[in-house]
């Protein structure tokens, strides 16, 4: 915590909390790497370690829990989507790429305790999603419904493609759950396995991720001022 102060010494007589925008810093020697990608020299050398801001330390568990719980809610409503990455998307949009990656990683680790670690490779989908949503946020991607849908489709397409690749190479298309059975149905209809996996995985992900991003956009555009003030990236995401 001391090291942090050494970068931005407060003006005399006035203490202002540093913007907690990203919340993750990586220190090595005299170099500080923040999750926004800034590389700053520090005045005092420190051992390399990862430091997470208290607010992020409080937010990440909640976001991971949101991923799990929203997955349950959509299942109870028997909706044809999962939305179980909404916590990752939300945090990536309001806090940036680094926090989004953290939420994705912890989510997948925790999910492994419930469904086994064979699905761990799918963590890269969460990371890609965090990257794209953070990008969308910094380009005012949530300003209007139209822009949100476009970004949603783009994210959905990318995630779908990646998930098809993972599913084909590691599982031969046999990833339990709805996607697997959709793939099987397409394959029995005569499509080659590669095509069946590609269509099965990417259509599911395209729909799911697009809706996740659209729903998150609905929330972001109507966030209370108090939250916007605490998460400046959210304000930027909706073009304020």
């Amino acid at each position, binding site marked *: *915590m001391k090291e942090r102060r050494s970068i931005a010494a407060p003006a005399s*007589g*006035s*203490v*202002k*909390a540093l913007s*907690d925008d990203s919340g993750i810093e990586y220190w090595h020697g005299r170099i500080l790497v923040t999750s926004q990608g800034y590389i700053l020299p520090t005045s005092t050398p420190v051992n390399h370690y990862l430091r997470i801001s*208290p*607010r992020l330390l409080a937010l990440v*568990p909640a976001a991971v829990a949101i991923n799990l719980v929203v997955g349950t809610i959509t299942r109870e409503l028997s909706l044809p989507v999962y939305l179980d990455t909404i916590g990752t998307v939300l945090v990536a949009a309001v806090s940036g790429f680094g926090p989004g990656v953290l939420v994705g990683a912890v989510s997948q680790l925790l999910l492994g305790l419930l469904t086994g670690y064979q699905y761990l490779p799918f963590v890269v989908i969460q990371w890609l999603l965090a990257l794209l949503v953070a990008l969308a946020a910094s380009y005012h991607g949530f300003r209007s419904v139209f822009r949100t849908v476009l970004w949603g489709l783009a994210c959905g397409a990318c995630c779908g493609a990646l998930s098809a690749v993972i599913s084909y190479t590691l599982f031969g298309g046999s990833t339990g759950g709805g996607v697997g059975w959709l793939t099987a149905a397409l394959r029995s209809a005569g499509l080659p396995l590669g095509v069946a996996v590609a269509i099965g995985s990417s259509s599911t992900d395209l729909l799911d991720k697009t809706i996740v991003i659209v729903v998150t956009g609905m929330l972001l555009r*109507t*966030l*209370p*001022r*108090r*939250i*916007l*003030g*605490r998460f400046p990236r959210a304000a930027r995401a909706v073009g304020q």
Partner: protein
Amino acid sequence: MTLIASDLWFRYPVQQDWALRGVDLSITPGEVTWFTGALGSGTSTMLLALAGLAPRLTGGERRGAVTLDGRDISDGSVLGRGIGYLGASPMLQLSGITNSVRDEVAVGPMNLGWPAARIAEAVVDAMARLDISHLAARAPGKLSGGETQRLLLAALLASAPSTWLLDEPFAALDRGSAARVGAMLRQLADAGHRVVVACDDADQMLGLADRILVFNSGSPVLDDLPDRILAGDQILVARAGTSDAATLAFMAGFAAPRPVRREDLLRQVELDPAATPHETESSSSGAPALDFANVGFSYRSEEPVLSDLTFSIAKGEAVGLFGANGAGKSTALRLAMALEYPVRGVVTTLGRPTAGRFPEHFAPQVGYLFQQPERQLFASSVTQECLLAPTVAGWNGDRAATAVAGVLEELGLADTAKEHPYDLPLPRRRLVALAAILAADPELLLLDEPTAGLDAVSRDLVIGAVRRRVEGGRAVLAITHDPLFAHEALDRGLLLDQCRLVLDGPVRDVIDDRRLRQPAALVIAIALGLPPGADRRNEVARLIERS
């Protein structure tokens, strides 16, 4: 050894207004210091600033200085500097890393790196002093509000801080626990600790505090001995809030300086507490709004939660449901809303048996206010939130808009109609949840602790809203621990004990029978035959202006 704020200014992020404005004060060891003031007067923020948490963790901007023993307070962790801080929402302050009360109490010492033997000793001692030893093996997340509060106080005590900054420490406590905590704070102060308490519970603090600071608009406007301040009309004159005790002292004709104690007040008006009258006639008529006939309930094959419960609530009647924790109060309320179904007997809500029906079938003709109702708000403005119920009721746009505007006006929310509910302070957010339920003019209101966590002004608004509904022929069933609300809003009381109905009569009888705290203010108000709630304060305010 001093904690000093000098010319302290503080504002939260994106706020133009300063929450603290040029505060100068020093907190003395060996004293219990009491911060009080109306909602938004800055007492909670002051505690955060004294703890060094604002702006370090809250964000925002600080000018001026807060120092502990000459060092800036932002320097280092709160606990590491010997500061025990307790926020107003106990549930949010659990560590989340333990599965027993015993371990939760040990979290502070564990993080401070004490030797294991010392930790074990401190934990046992702290649990005994807060009377939670019997809960040692329970899961911290499954405790009641009062138990959680005691757990957190024990956790602070175990880490042996020398400065105690407590925000509403008595809020969730019953009478016995509050007295116990009060005695503990007294002992701590006498042992040379600094103890600062922010709350507006005059009955609790009057005998405890050595010094009172009354805040208004971000700085202390009065700073004196509690007896002196509370005995007169100073708080009202300083426009720093409406302490019930102060109001009534004024009504009873006390001049400052003079201590306000229940006994003194009663002697002044020549009354005996046992002889305080209460005359509310319930005007029941027509078909009951809610009827329980020989209702029994248990979760699966476990012990019964309710057995052979029979009562009915007429239209135009406000009924309170009383009893200890676990007596089955919440279950009775849930049965009335078809959230649970009776195992034996029949529950009839608005003339329809609940069996085979779902909560959706009774919405919005039945309004159900849950505990912590602010956590169910989802719309982007207060008005939008309130429009849900009229929409469900199928009202057209104009009728719905008029109804919502009326309810918002009634609950003092008209100026926040376009605000996001989550931008409002907690008590007002709770009022929004109530407004959302009242908007479609329900015929039966089921209220679970409707005044919990509300300030005096908000509580008066709730009391007023309930009374108007009852006079308009609506029925109310409420669970409450708030004696003021019970007295002023309810007619009849039902007392549950060990799953059975043991008393059904005027609310006053039930309250007298219970160990509910009876604020001196309430006793006097009844004795003097003063009007309830907001009317009483308005009357006093008029009198002050005239005098």
